[in-house]
């Protein structure tokens, strides 16, 4: 089975297609770059800061202090002079819990930051797609209006697109076609109005109409 409508050439309008390819690829690239950069620096920056020598030392001291607070408040025994194995284990446990807490906070913070940035990007891209699509949808809307007017017999209409609209060449071709059609029909109108001799009128009309190719024949 032969597919007559199968596309053979994908690049039918290179400048237009390349422009769109660049725009969409650039948008995806920006999103990916922002995401990866935020993740990388958010997580690693946070980890490097949270687990720096100074912070680790401070956390160790705080873990030890909080353990001592707890012992001072709850213990009914005389405080030990040296670090008991149980106390050491509790401090290590406390520090480990704190590190998990810190790591979770880093991830949460990074994700919150990323979510904010991505939301902003999506809003920008959503606005961008409206802008881009308008460059196509606008001309299509114009074309439709032109065709409607032509269908009603108005050949004096012309297509005027905005500066950055797509399909300007199509509009130019359409305007040329309309111009030719308009001139031909104007000529026929002039012939019918000015030619008084019926035989010569028919002959001239036939001559002019023979230049058209229509579905009626020829």
């Amino acid at each position, binding site marked *: 089975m032969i597919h007559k409508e199968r596309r053979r050439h994908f690049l039918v309008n290179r400048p237009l297609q390349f422009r769109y390819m660049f725009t969409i690829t650039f948008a995806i690239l920006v999103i990916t770059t922002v995401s990866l950069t935020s993740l990388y620096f958010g997580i690693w920056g946070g980890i490097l800061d949270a687990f720096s020598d100074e912070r680790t030392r401070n956390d160790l001291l*705080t873990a030890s202090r909080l353990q001592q607070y707890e012992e001072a408040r709850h213990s009914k025994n005389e405080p030990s002079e040296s670090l008991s194995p149980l106390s050491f284990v509790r401090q290590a446990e*406390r520090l480990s819990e*704190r590190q998990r807490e810190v790591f979770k906070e880093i991830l949460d913070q990074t994700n919150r930051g990323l979510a904010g940035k991505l939301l902003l990007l999506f809003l920008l891209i959503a606005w961008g797609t409206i802008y881009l699509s308008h460059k196509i949808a606008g001309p299509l809307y114009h074309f439709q209006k032109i065709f409607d007017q032509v269908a009603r017999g108005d050949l004096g209409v012309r297509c005027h697109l905005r500066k950055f609209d797509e399909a300007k060449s199509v509009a130019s071709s359409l305007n040329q076609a309309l111009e030719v059609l308009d001139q031909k029909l104007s000529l026929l109108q002039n012939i019918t109005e000015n030619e008084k001799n019926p035989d010569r009128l028919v002959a001239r009309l036939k001559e002019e109409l023979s230049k058209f190719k229509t579905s009626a024949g020829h």
Partner: protein
Amino acid sequence: MPATRAFSLAVLFFFLSTSLVGGTPFSLSEEDRQLLEKIEKDSIQYFIRYADRGTGLVNDSSQPGSPASIAATGFGLASLAIAQSRGWISYRKAYDQIRRTLLALRNDADHERGFFYHFLDLKTGRRVWRSEASSIDTALLVAGALLAAQYFRGTDLPRLAQELYDRVDWQWMMNGTPLVCHGWKPESGFLPYYWDSYSELIILQALAIGSSTHPVPPDAWEAWNRLEDEYNGKRIVFCFSGSLFTYQFSHAFIDFRELDDRGINYFENSKKATEANWEYSLSFKDQHKAYSEASWGLSASLGPGGYKAYGAKPGLGFHDGTVAPYASISSLVFTPELSLQAIKFFYETYKDSLYGPHGFKDAFNLDKKWWAREYLGIDQGITVLMLENFLSGGAVWEKFMKLPGIQKWIELCKLRAPKTRPETTVQPELIPSEGIAAPNGSPSLQ
């Protein structure tokens, strides 16, 4: 006319230089007053320097990386209010910072049924270090908030502070027992510790019983133990650790001078406990270099081996030669002469090592040549409140005792002293101003 003016000035000076805290005037020289005011003012600076600009939460200590402590934050709120009342900071600055803190506590700080977690992230108010929702620390925070709000009546601060108080479900913290639990953790539920004997628990009990929204039954007041023991002829309702702060924290807010709990006057009790603390450390002065008549104060504090519940008899009486200046300063209302002597000694002798921009650092130990480099928030806080009570003739007490919740607690627990006091209860009096006398005669050394 000059004679009249001179007389008037003399009378004014007399009133300005006397403290009526204990019921009898205590003579205070202008020089001593200035020193005490300097210490109070400097100690308040801790709560300005170590409070977060956004949330107003206060660091537990001056150690880098220290989390916010809710108890320190409570003392901070009270300290800011006191600072503006003395003209050390502007009304606007104090109001703004207290309001910011109360809003952060109400809206952002992690809590469980109104009980704040002991340690919070300074900037976000989120729970850190998997700390417990703490009953006593919440009580100290609420007490500080209510007290601070009393200095700003007619503003929105009393309403905000009351909202924090009303939110606390004190009854839930009893966990179906007659006592209030120490705390609760999301991971493991209620802690296996309850406030079962005399300590700083009274401020917690007072607020819990006096609550208008979630009160604990008045029976809770009867449920905890008043363990008594004798030391050097003094019968004392004691705290297990014998730490001096346990005889001070509730007393910073509550005026116990006219309250009577079944024959126990807790002001008098704290006075005796302070004297016992002094005598106890003095009995070891040959073993520990830091102990002397003018250098004392055994209380939970930092030490060479970390934070420990140092204390005296009656109680565990654990000590290692470490002295906490905040403990002797905060006893001013009980033992003004002993405390003032210690304060002057610490300041004049150890100023370079022990005194910093935020007042006295936490502790020192001469045997081990150890000096704390840190300030602890709650120890700065008790210093400020007790100094204020002493210097102003009980301004903090006066404001706090007017709170409806406190009045309700007094009524429900029948704590109002009878017209004729029982013979066992001695009207609290400050030590006469002449000389430094050993309380109740010479201490018997052990």
